[in-house]
């Protein structure tokens, strides 16, 4: 069965969803991502949905789950490239996905992730008080 490829870029993971996913594929993605975050101790996850023409409540829920699970594993998630028609429909559907960070495109998304990771690192102190 197909699985959606996950790319590793430094301490971030990058996923591009291009296909009209059936439910099983979405569930596999959730599992794969959480596994990879834990394995690589990733600090950021970027999910690009610029090719996705439909986001229904199931996919929306999946995205919200991924963000929540990632946070538990100490990684930040950014959703990029949502199409206007999809955004309008999601709002009408009643899903505002308020817990998820969003960015216009992959470039901005990576900038955002770097910013969060940097800010987070600034708060980390190791042993004798020197910053990491």
């Amino acid at each position, binding site marked *: 069965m197909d699985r959606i490829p996950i790319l590793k870029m430094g301490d971030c993971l990058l996923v591009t969803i291009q296909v009209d996913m059936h*439910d099983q594929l979405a569930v596999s993605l959730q599992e794969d991502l959480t596994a990879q975050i834990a394995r690589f101790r990733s600090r950021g996850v970027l999910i690009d949905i610029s090719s996705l023409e439909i986001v229904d*409540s199931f996919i929306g829920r999946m995205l919200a789950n991924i963000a929540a699970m990632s946070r538990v594993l100490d990684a930040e998630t950014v959703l990029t490239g949502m199409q206007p*028609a999809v955004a309008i429909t999601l709002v*009408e*559907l009643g899903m505002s996905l308020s817990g998820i960070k969003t960015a216009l495109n992959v470039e901005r998304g990576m900038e955002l992730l770097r910013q969060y990771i940097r800010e987070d690192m600034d708060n980390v102190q190791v042993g004798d008080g020197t910053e990491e």
Partner: protein
Amino acid sequence: MVLKSEQHPIATADDVVRVRQVARSWAAELKFSLVDQTKLVTATSELARNTLEHGRGGTMRVEHVENGARRGVKLIFEDKGPGIADINLALRDGYTTGGGMGLGLSGSKRLVNEFDIKSEAGRGTTVTIIRWK
């Protein structure tokens, strides 16, 4: 009044993907705007999934309909599953029996122009939606 009509099975997860594409092409044929197409296809996805998961499989009938001089796409989702005991409750935002966000039925209603649901506990469910151009 019906201009043309087709029926599709909803028995597997792949069928849910397939009927989304069917709804999309039938709407595109009538030259719906992109936003209207997206709304209709999203509603289709929600209802097809309900048919598969709660209705234990069923069918989707897609039609081009005409009312006076306006044209639209009509979709009828039918299953012979357990049915819904309390329709008003099911139509409320947030109500869910499946651990989801409970927006499928109530959300779909907001995405279309006409929405009708008939269901009886033990006798199955029929949801009819129409999006006019």
